[in-house]
């Protein structure tokens, strides 16, 4: 009988899937230059597009992109949802309030350290151990590092991650020469892919985010 029960336990364990189905999302919000005006809109996208899609067990972090983004202080908020849906809903509500406070803050950075924020986001994503790792970048994707700041990405910096460049604002120079805008995005794509990213996609419409995030 004991052997039989041991066999049953072994079978049950073998049936359970070792694959982690949880999803971790990091939203990088640019508060520098002209993009700083987009913050309320970005927070709305996070609240309406990302937060409702998260399932119990999923994680969400919001990181601010400013002069030097590779700081813990740049993490505006983060949650890992409880496994019980009722508690997860309460956590989402609390996080939404936190995001409203973030949107209300007046912030405008002089420089744009995108890679620093991405490196920080990558660390947070790796720490969650989630099966699906997504980085959503809300920025014009124009990096402008302060003097003396160096950002070198590790070869496997974005290993297994999906990077979505969302709501990329076109600069005045981009309107004059769209090729420059396209080259900038292509350069980011090449950079992301070369550092192990599974996917790099440009998302123009907020509604598309629904399809790109795992349910």
């Amino acid at each position: 009988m004991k052997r039989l029960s041991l066999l049953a336990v072994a079978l049950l364990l073998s049936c359970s899937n070792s694959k982690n189905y949880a999803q971790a999302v990091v939203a990088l919000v640019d508060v520098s230059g002209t993009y700083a005006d987009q913050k309320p809109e970005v927070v709305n996208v996070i609240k309406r597009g990302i937060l409702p899609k998260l399932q119990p067990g999923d994680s969400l972090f919001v990181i601010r992109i400013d002069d030097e983004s590779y700081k813990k202080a740049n993490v505006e908020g983060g949650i890992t949802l409880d496994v019980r849906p009722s508690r997860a809903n309460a956590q989402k509500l609390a996080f939404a309030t936190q995001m409203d406070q973030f949107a209300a803050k007046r912030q405008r950075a002089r420089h744009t350290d995108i890679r620093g924020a991405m490196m920080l986001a990558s660390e947070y994503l790796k720490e969650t151990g989630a099966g699906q790792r997504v980085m959503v970048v809300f920025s014009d994707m124009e990096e402008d590092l302060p003097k003396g700041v160096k950002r070198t990405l590790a070869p496997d910096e974005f290993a297994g991650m999906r990077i979505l460049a969302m709501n990329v604002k076109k600069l005045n120079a981009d309107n004059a020469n769209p090729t420059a805008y396209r080259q900038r995005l292509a350069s980011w794509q090449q950079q992301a892919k070369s550092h192990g990213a599974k996917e790099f996609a440009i998302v123009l419409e907020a509604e598309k985010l629904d399809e790109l995030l795992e349910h």
Partner: protein
Amino acid sequence: MESLYLWPARPAASLLALWLLSQLFCWAARAPVHRAFRALGRVVAGAFRITARWCKSVSVSVAKRDREMVLEMGKGDAESKVAREFRRVEVSFAKELGRYPELHRKMDDLTARIDADYKECGAAAPTPPGWAEATAAVAKMPANGDNVVRKVLEEIHNTAKSGEKKALQEYRDATAKRHKILNGMAPMLKELKENAADAGKSVSAALETTKRIDQHMTAYEQIRKGEDKAVRAMGWQSTQLFVASLLVLGVAIGGAFVNFNLIALPMSELVPAGSRIGGMPVSTVAALVVVLMEVAAGIFAMEMLGITSFFPKLDLLPASRRRIILAVSVGGLLLLACIECSLAVLREQLVESATALKQSLAGVHEKAVADPAASRIPVVGQAVLGFILPWILAMVAVPLETLIATGGHIFLTLTAGALALIGTIARLLGHGSRYLVEGARHLYDIYIVLPLQIERLASGARPTIPAAKGARP
């Protein structure tokens, strides 16, 4: 094509030369080509014929197996019907015969009382013989003026009159008494009649049962003899049962689906929502397991009630243990029904919470539509549904057993039909291929008709057709 031209500059001449060469080659190779065609025809047709024969033989053996199975099923069914009727007879006889001594005693008692009453009715005080006539004679004697005699005679006359009056009164009293006794006999006679009617009913019921037993025995005899009519009837009955149970099972699966959806969402509150088994969330698996447990409990309950017989070993258990298993099954079902009822209520709360969250995240603070939460109907409806569905699912055992019992016959019938159809198609293909190869052979001859005619003219005879005797492989 152009690469085959002998003279590329002159395609017509090249084509003519190629045609002539092919004619020559085909004419020379005619006999071996005909042999090759015959062999091909034999091989293809033979293969199809073997396939057809194999299909037919397997189909016949499957049909035979099906017939045996139907007969066995029918035999078992008839035996169980006869046994059930005998049980009824036994129960009825035990009951009626148990009552018979009492009935008999009652009837004896009643008849004895009626007899006694009857006798009492007949008993009357006898009149003293001759006394009235003597008195009358004395009273009629003439009075001779003697006062003493007259007085005596008057006295006798008065005495006679009073005696007559008294006798008449006594007679009336006796008659009234008899009537009273006879009135008292009426209920006894009624009771006697009712008892006789009861006995008659019991006898009629017994006769009906024996008639049914006779019918079952006749059917049983027919099945035992393996009569085609009985086999057809049994097969048709099995098909009807299969279709009916399939329909009921389909409805039950629909119910299970509704039940599953009712508890899948709230189940995530009870089990870890993040874990998965085989790619499915644990909450979904748990909901599925609950539904299956309800079905299993239902199967055991039905088994213990004697409605189904999935597990023959359970039939051998003593009644007390069967009662325990029945109580556990029904208790389990009740528990699961209560759990589902509470989960259904929880589900409504979760849906309300999720809707409120979405509205809040979307920045909608005003209620654009009437608040559905004000009505308790959805909650009550879901709770009732959650309580009732497990009991309905428990009934699945009955159609499931019928489906399994009749499924064998349906499977064998379909297999036999499919094999017979394949056999017929293979036979047709065999014929078709044979004539196709024959046609190809004739087309070959048509192609080289010119050399053949030249050969005929040269030899002065009709060309022999080597395939004539081997046309039918």
